[in-house]
């Protein structure tokens, strides 16, 4: 008797395919939203395990939003949720540099300020802004991830930028 796979994602191949399709996006989304301290990698794993547990009930097309919702809810209920920390990668100092110490210092100051400013944004503002500016995600795509309208995404990006510029100051 053939097992009905229709109406679910219990097929291993399909399941793994879904992982390849969505895991990275989900990871980056969680990273920008909650920061590295909250282990976005583990959250992705947990979300996919949950998807496997519920594979009969979740349709292929709904899998993506299921994953995003599960991971977000998990963080909502997380008592040990840590404060969002976003680290920037520092460029390795060149052995010979033409940059003056003042420039290096100023640069570091700017990055620290920007880091604080980013961390001070709301989760929603930050994830929207960074997905757009760093990952180059389109408004429509972000709107689908967050389950909000494109207009709202646009507004959030603008507000986030406004806050950042106020906090970092115009240089």
């Amino acid at each position, binding site marked *: 008797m053939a097992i009905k796979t229709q109406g679910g994602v219990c097929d291993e191949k399909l399941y*793994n395919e879904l*992982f*390849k399709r969505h*895991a*990275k996006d989900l*990871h*980056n989304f969680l*990273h*920008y939203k909650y920061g*590295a301290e909250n282990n*976005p*990698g583990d959250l*992705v*794993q*947990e979300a*996919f*395990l949950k998807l*496997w547990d519920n594979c009969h009930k979740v349709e292929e097309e709904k899998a993506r939003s299921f994953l995003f919702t599960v991971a977000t809810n998990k963080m909502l209920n997380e008592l040990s949720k840590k404060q969002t920390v*976003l*680290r*920037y*990668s*520092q*460029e390795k100092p060149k052995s010979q540099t033409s940059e003056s110490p003042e420039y290096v210092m100023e640069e570091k100051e*700017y*990055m620290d300020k*920007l*880091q604080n400013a*980013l961390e001070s944004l709301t989760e929603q503002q930050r994830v929207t802004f*960074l997905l*757009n*500016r*760093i*990952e180059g995600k389109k408004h429509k795509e972000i709107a689908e991830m967050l389950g909000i309208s494109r207009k709202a995404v646009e507004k959030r*990006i*603008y507000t986030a*930028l406004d806050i*950042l*510029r106020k906090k*970092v*100051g*115009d*240089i």
Partner: protein
Amino acid sequence: MKDEDYIKKWLEGTLTEEDERAFKGSEQQKSLDRLSRALPAFKAPEYDVADELSRLEQARTSKAEEGRIVPMKWMKPLLRVAAVFVLLSVVYVFLTRDALTTVETLVAEKTEIVLPDSSLVTLNAHSRLMYPTKKWKDKRKVTLDGEGFFKVAKGSRFDVETSSGVVRVLGTEFNVKNRENYFEVICYEGLVQVQSAQQVVKLNPNQMFRIINGEVTTEALSLQVSPSWLAGESSFSSVPLKYVIQEFERQYDVSVIIKNVDIDQRFTGAFIHNDITLALKAISLPVNIDYQLEENKQVILSGK
């Protein structure tokens, strides 16, 4: 074009060459430029899809074997169990152990306490009374440190525990004074049983039982309805002077310095609680000593 529009267009990436030229070198353009140069440094770390997928497969197999979820989370259920234990033990302690009610008086202070069975206790200065509220129905028992006058409501046994002995009654009026090396019980009504380390004594109204420094006296007193201290006067019959002075210190919150006075001589008399000069006269005249009232709450008693 306004700044706002410029920023919107910059965000959308729809700036025309003309726009760019117009804003070239402006503050807006510089800050946005700087921001877009800085942001890539915040890019999320590289996500290794293949690695993570094999990790997921492992987790799924081990889960299928165990039939339950994620190894790392074992703390959580454990904490839940621990929390239930803590809660249960708190409830247990709360239900079984009875909290004691404690009433204390300071020096130069008196207070009245109505016990759960409406028995009445008047506490003299610098005394403490403790009693269980909840278990009161089963056992009427109070612990006294200091001096108190009891008007016990009729009922079952009523015990007053002191460091020097237990006073047991059925329903009556009596005074218990338990100070350092000094234990005195006077019965005013009914029948009181005093159980000290040395003996068991039954007291009828207006009988007194006293132990001073291990020396036991039983004495019949002249008729009184209640101890005189309730009326603002401490009275003594044949009590060593030092206990009189100690009571005086408690009633007036002063410290007494003694010079060349025999404090073991017996004193019979009384002093009132609301006039220190009069009280000092009452104490010093019968034993023929001088008193001096100093500042800073000091009194000097000196022999002549």
